């Protein structure tokens, strides 16, 4: 395979991790976050600092996940107790604050970012395999959680918080847990990205990325892990095939997001379900 193919596979794996972990927060548990890119970025920077300081790959990845999850915990803690839609506002703020903050920090390389990050030592092929294995593990985790009682309760929280409370579900704890797990996976994806590019800049983690990830989740179908995986693959490959999409990313994804919400709120997964239902009837 060519270097380009390995790089594409790596990006696919990272986007699958980001989209399915956001789905865990928004799809399973009904909390809309438009700041997932910031937690991804926090993990990437944390892992980069570790790598530059000479720590081994597993440590840097673990620190990336911990920093992403810790930041997620703090942001979640500050907003889950408030009104249901408050998280959207907070996470948009976090998205802009993160990039604005990093741009001004000399120790994070400011606008120039962090370069000369040591290689993982696995080579492009090894990196791609490592990333795809983590993506597979993330999918497995999401599928498992969705079948467990945790996922069962998440769905209740997503449906109706007050009703969930009246059947003894501690709603705030569940929301915070979903948010922390999801942002930790984003942080881990950030660490993987660090080793993949060996060069990170603030602009890789902007609000546009967060909107793109939300588009993957909504287009795939909120709550459907496989739907979101497919949407992540499509939305990663399309801009590669058609360069103009990249130039108008925010416009196109934003537009598609609105159209899906209006006309097919179940996303790809919803469309697949209704088609199979109709075929079975016929």
């Amino acid at each position: 395979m060519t270097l380009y193919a390995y790089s594409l596979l790596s990006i696919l794996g990272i986007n699958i991790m980001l989209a399915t972990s956001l789905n865990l927060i928004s799809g399973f548990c009904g909390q809309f976050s438009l700041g997932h890119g910031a937690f991804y970025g926090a993990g990437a920077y944390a892992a980069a600092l570790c790598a530059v300081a000479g720590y081994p790959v597993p440590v840097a990845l673990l620190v990336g996940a911990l920093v992403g999850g810790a930041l997620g915990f703090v942001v979640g803690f500050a907003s889950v107790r408030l009104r249901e839609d408050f998280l959207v506002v907070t996470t948009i703020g976090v998205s802009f604050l993160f990039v604005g903050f990093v741009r001004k920090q000399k120790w994070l390389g400011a606008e120039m970012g962090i370069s000369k990050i040591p290689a993982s030592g696995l080579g492009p092929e090894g990196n791609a395999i490592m990333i795809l294995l983590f993506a597979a593990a993330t999918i497995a985790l999401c599928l498992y959680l969705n079948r467990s009682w945790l996922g069962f309760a998440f769905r209740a929280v997503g449906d109706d918080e007050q009703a969930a409370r009246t059947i003894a579900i501690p709603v705030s704890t569940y929301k915070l847990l979903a948010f922390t797990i999801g942002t930790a996976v984003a942080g881990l994806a950030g660490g993987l990205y660090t080793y993949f590019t060996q060069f990170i800049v603030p602009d890789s983690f902007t609000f546009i990325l967060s909107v793109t990830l939300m588009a993957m989740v909504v287009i795939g179908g909120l709550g459907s892990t496989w739907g979101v995986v497919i949407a992540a693959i499509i939305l990663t490959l399309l801009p590669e095939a058609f360069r103009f999409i990249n130039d108008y990313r925010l416009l196109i994804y934003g537009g598609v997001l609105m159209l899906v919400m209006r006309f097919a709120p179940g996303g790809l997964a919803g469309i697949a379900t209704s088609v199979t239902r109709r075929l079975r009837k016929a």
Partner: protein
Amino acid sequence: MTTLHVESVSIRFGGVQALTDVNFSVQKGEFVGLIGPNGAGKTTLLKIIAGILTPDTGRVMLEGEDVTRLPTAKRVRKGLAITHQIVRPFRSMTTLDNTALAAGYKITSNPLTAAFHWRRSQQSARAAEMLAKVGLAGLEDRDVSALPLGNLKRLEVARALALDPSIIILDEPLAGLNHREAERQADTLAALNAEGLTIVLIEHNLRELVRVSKRLLVLDGGKMIADGEPEHVMSDPAVREAYVGKADDHAAA
């Protein structure tokens, strides 16, 4: 033994004094009816008991313990179950799953426990039992979005019963049921009460209420205006005044 004790509870919404110094107790094993015209404050009182609203003054005690500051989920774990007047099913689930999730309250009360459990057969069996009890047998696999209001009202009751409560407060569970169905549902509640469940029933269906409850409480304009045996309360001039004066809106409830 006192199961529920409400002490000088008051609450105000903007310009509306919804409840004023409300006091009452419910003993273990009682079947109490709570009536009052529309807007009297019945649902507000239920929400305060359940911890959905916090009163401006006063306190709520469950089994002798002050729970005024306790969140809803913790009160439910202490044995309190409620049903909603405006039904609130989990829309993405079947009738059975709605109830099975409630039956798994011991698992879901801690998310870490929930993460390491996946089998549902025991809770589903218990849920099916509760659904049969309220007259929803055969509808286990229905999406709740396809159910008529009367069935959603029954689902509220099934879901609450699946929590193994020691006291249940029901907010107009008979609305949406016809005469025969309401009668059967009231009989079900009476049977549960005979088995030891303490019940507070908020209802506009006075015929059923007087038939099954052994004590009536009357709220009017946020104040408790009567408390006693049903026959006695119903002949109280103040109660008749509250109802006759507002006969129109009580029918619309």
